[in-house]
């Protein structure tokens, strides 16, 4: 609230009051009142006006300044009302009441949507649990009846897609439903490779694992999902001859980095910055192998929830490297303090 703007806003009142003052002065002269008294009354009148406007100005400025400053520092601006102190002047009270109503109604709406989202997520979780029962049965049936074996790749696809739905729902959830603890990276890597063994063996891809025998801080299940998405890309976009996927770690001062490197078809430089965007399929997505543009998007989203950093490097036609950075223990201790 600037003084200049305030005066501008009050210009009509000021003009009217000054007009009336001049009129009164003129009348006093007409009735031949002593000039000294006229001057005195004049000065008095101006003083009264000044103090009146200053008082009103200060009262409002104080209220609005406090409010605007608080708003500035607020991360979630829509909570502004919560920081407003009740003003003492009338029009301020009207504003306060109106904002109170608006904010209340907005909160009700937000709560409704929040509830809907949570309900939906819970339904998805329930549905996923349900669908896994017949899926387990199918997998066992394939094993018990070898003539069903050719269903394996299709069932595997269903399994992967179901996982994606589940983690999509989880990635959007507001509440925290992961558990960060010391996790053996080797166990996670082994589990993920085992899960994808059919496709790896089918395409005759060579797997190389180097010093992954380290512990990181993460949620093992989430990490399995993320690694699964990355590995599944490496398999999908592998070349036909001498395909190889290498998983290794690099030990940095502040973090442990897991590198997933393949010698597949790589990513176009123009596509590279966008591979973690939602629904982005790029050049590779159009070459055949089905692609939804969800895998890496979910990886990035889940990674940021877990406090991990994920990056990609690639040379078209030669390789793709995905890096996952796990902060070391000190980092978590630092944030806990």
């Amino acid at each position, binding site marked *: 609230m600037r003084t200049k703007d305030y005066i501008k806003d009050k210009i009509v009142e000021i003009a009217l009051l000054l007009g009336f003052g001049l009129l009164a002065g003129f009348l006093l002269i007409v009735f031949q009142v002593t000039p000294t008294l006229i001057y005195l009354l004049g000065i008095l009148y101006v003083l009264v006006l000044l103090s009146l406007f200053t008082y009103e100005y200060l009262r409002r400025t104080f209220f609005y300044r406090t409010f605007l400053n608080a708003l500035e520092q607020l991360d979630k601006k829509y909570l502004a009302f919560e920081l407003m102190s009740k003003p003492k002047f009338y029009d301020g009270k009207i504003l306060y009441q109106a904002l109170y109503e608006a904010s209340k109604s907005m909160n009700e709406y937000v709560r409704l949507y929040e509830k809907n989202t949570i309900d939906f997520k819970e339904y998805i979780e329930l549905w*996923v*649990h*349900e669908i*896994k*029962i*017949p*899926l*387990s*049965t*199918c*997998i*066992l*049936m394939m*094993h*018990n009846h070898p003539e069903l074996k050719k269903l394996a790749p299709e069932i595997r696809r269903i*399994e992967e897609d179901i996982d994606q739905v589940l983690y999509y729902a989880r990635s959007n959830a507001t509440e925290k*439903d*992961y*558990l960060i*603890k010391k996790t053996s990276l080797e166990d996670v890597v*082994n589990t993920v*490779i*085992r899960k994808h*063994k059919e496709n*790896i*063996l089918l395409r*005759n*891809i*060579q*797997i190389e*694992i180097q010093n992954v025998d380290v512990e990181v801080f993460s*949620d*093992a*299940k*989430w990490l399995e999902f993320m690694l699964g998405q990355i590995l599944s890309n490496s398999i999908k976009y592998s070349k036909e001859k001498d395909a190889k996927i290498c998983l290794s770690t690099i030990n940095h001062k502040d973090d442990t980095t897991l590198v997933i490197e393949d010698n597949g078809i790589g990513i176009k430089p123009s596509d590279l910055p966008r591979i973690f965007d939602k629904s982005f399929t790029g050049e590779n997505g159009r070459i055949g192998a089905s692609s939804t543009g969800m895998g890496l998007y979910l990886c990035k989203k889940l990674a940021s929830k877990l406090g991990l950093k994920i990056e990609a490097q690639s040379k078209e036609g030669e390789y793709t490297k995905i890096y996952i950075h796990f902060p070391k223990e000190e980092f978590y201790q630092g944030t806990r303090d």
Partner: protein
Amino acid sequence: MAKIMIVEDDQTLREEVKSLLDHHGYETITLTNFIDSVEEILSSNPDLVLLDITLPTLSGEQILKEIRKKSDVFVIMLTSKNTEMDEVLSMSYGADDYISKPYHPTILLLHIESILKRREHHEDTLKYQDVIVNPLKSTLERKGQTLLLSKNELGIFVYLLKHVGTIVTRDDLMNYLWDTNVFIDDNTLTVNMNRLRKKLEEIGLENVIETRRGQGYILL
């Protein structure tokens, strides 16, 4: 023969698990009435219980708590809930292992095998003719001679030994190796198989592994 109790409320799944375990030489009992689950489980005195979490009346977790008050029987929790939290909780209630659905048959069998092994951990050796296999040391012993095997060679030998006298396809062998975290490709399998044969010759076992063209391998 180990007795395994299957506690799973989905009938089709229960029957498939039963058929899988029967086929792999386990004695199985299934629970069909979930009203007195705990008593039924304890009275049938199994060596191991496969326990689903979502069950009618009592949940798997509650059953596990009740079982643990009276018995130390091995329990593997099978569940479609797959959060880290569920796993930690189950283990804290006293489960010996935790497998999430959809589980793959070989994984399930391997978990069962490794749990049951804990019971007889002192005699953790396999035998082939007069050869003693020691998986923990990764060695074979025959007439005082000790033969050191690599992880891959041991894996191959153990699998062939489990199916001694029957033909094992390359696919089955690869699947087993991958399930035990030996991620080798086709060529490496051939190389390792040849090395294993040469090593076996060193302790006087000649031509015990035969190649059946177009079918696979057989340990005689």
